[in-house]
């Protein structure tokens, strides 16, 4: 595992609690994420990992606690503001836009950076056309990076699962994020696909210095890729540290394998 120059804390989650009616999804969670690192969030199913990401993104509003992002503290996140602050994410269930092609999906990731107004776009000739071409160039770079050139015009719904995952990643990358939240990027993949995806993630972190927060079940991947790991179980934090520390933590072992009474 290469040594990465991890920087200061850019995301600090403090005492976060989330409830859905009577169901406590997250209870008093605190952890931080440093710039340029790869931070994994692991835990058994239903531990609240996706809910955690959803809170960071502003999809869910926590009842208690705060999130400090790049020095600014929030009790409620707003999805657009989070996106504007340079945070992108992928989804566990692939929230791709089924009615659009691969190219169009990734282009939507450029949306925040496109500035032409309605009138300019309606005329297209001139500013809007130039802007579209400029962003197309960037997106094509991402398509090259993810090796999905052949599928540009294919409607995403027609692609196999592994390729759809790449498009999801591509769309997040198109936002040129400083922090990338990946929700089970390897789910449903075979060994080769996992190797490809791991390579992409590492490349993104190396080349662009993007901070990565990663939810993952595959322990091998987690141990290999991450700098630090947070472990959740039943909405509570039960471990936090380097992969080696976490692997040896008895609470973590119990959570995964079950306690012997």
């Amino acid at each position: 595992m290469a040594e990465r120059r991890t920087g200061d804390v850019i995301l600090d989650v403090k005492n976060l609690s989330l409830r859905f009616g009577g169901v406590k999804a997250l209870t008093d969670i605190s952890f931080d994420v440093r710039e340029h690192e790869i931070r994994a969030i692991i835990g058994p199913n239903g531990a609240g990992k996706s809910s955690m990401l959803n809170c960071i993104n502003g999809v869910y509003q926590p009842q208690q606690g705060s999130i400090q992002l790049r020095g600014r503290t929030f009790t409620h996140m707003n999805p657009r503001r989070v996106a504007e602050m340079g945070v992108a994410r992928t989804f566990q269930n692939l929230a791709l836009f089924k009615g659009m092609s691969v190219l169009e999906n990734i282009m939507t990731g450029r949306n925040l950076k496109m500035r032409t107004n309605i009138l300019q776009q309606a005329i297209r000739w001139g500013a809007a056309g130039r802007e579209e071409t400029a962003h197309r160039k960037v997106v094509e770079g991402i398509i090259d990076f993810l090796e999905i050139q052949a599928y540009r015009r294919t409607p995403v719904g027609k692609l196999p699962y592994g390729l759809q995952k790449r498009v999801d990643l591509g769309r997040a990358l198109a936002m040129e994020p400083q922090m990338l939240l990946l929700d089970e990027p390897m789910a449903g993949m075979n060994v080769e696909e996992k190797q490809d995806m791991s390579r992409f993630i590492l490349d993104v972190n190396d080349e662009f210095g993007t901070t990565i927060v990663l939810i993952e079940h595959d322990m091998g991947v987690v141990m290999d890729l991450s700098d630090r790991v947070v472990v959740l179980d039943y909405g509570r934090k039960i471990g936090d540290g380097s992969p080696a520390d976490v692997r040896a933590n008895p609470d973590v072992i119990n959570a995964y394998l079950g306690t012997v009474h």
Partner: protein
Amino acid sequence: MLYRENGQFKTTYRADQQIFPILQDRIAIALLLVVAFVVVPLVADAYTLRAILIPFLILSLAALGLNILVGYCGQISLGTGAFMAVGAYAAYNFMVRFDGMPLLAAMLLGGLMSTIVGVLFGIPSLRIKGLYLAVATLAAQFFADWAFLRVPFFTNNSSSGSVSVPSLSVFGMEIESPAHKYLFCLAIVCVFALLAKNLVRGHLGREWMAIRDMDVAAEVIGIRPVYAKLTAFAVSSFIVGVAGVLWGFVYLGSWEPAAFSIDRSFQLLFMVIIGGLGSIMGSFFGAAFIVLLPLFLNRVPTLLGIPISVSAASHLEFMIFGSLIVFFLIVEPHGLARLWSTGKEKLRLWPFPH
């Protein structure tokens, strides 16, 4: 053999982003425009122009507007007739109350009024979705039905309840004959189709489609649902409003609120669905289908020598109409536009099977 793209390599993104990237398509469209602008006015008789082509053009425009809202942005609207009415009555009021108001200005102002009303009735879409939204848009429809009937201001205190427009002229040219009216409508439709296509392939169009497909994910990318939905309502209502102006001014000449009733709304929705949701071309296909079907149904029995009473014909029309809607939804939910593009795909391979 004919429809191959062999040798058509794009070396710039601009070239790849054209509306019609394939050369054969560009030739076909050019030919179509030549026929439409030059050949048809010379060759077609007054009846064809007046009863088939002009309504087809105007309804295509309205369907285009509706398609933007329903097909591209995924917001149901059952109140399109109301927005056409707003456009028509607004333009009428501008023309009648302001001396010397040019036709085009009145048309654009009518569209603008329709936009304002459209955005207003689009506000519910920020909180409610799907079926609930559909019923909410019916509120617009019935309110408009009532307003244009009962509020004398809108009809300029007309005693009969109907309004009529004086003769039309654009830039000093009279628009009297069916051929002139046809060309006027054709020009407007072409301009709007181009503007709409540009919007739809730009980033606003992608915003609309993102909201349609998965609004939660769209938010996470930084798309504002409020902006996307309201612009969809705005652009859609503008186009539908202009279509309303054309319908009242150019096609009907004089009209009452019933011209823009709920039947019109359903008719436009059917056009969009049968033609193809989320397809500019589909709006034209749908309009053609809906305009031609009743004529076809009226002619066929006489051609086959089967006498059929007027009421029986209209019942049959209802039944066939409804059956076709259901048929399309089952067989090709993406409408005629999808059938067309599938056909073109096959044509690209012809004469080879695959």
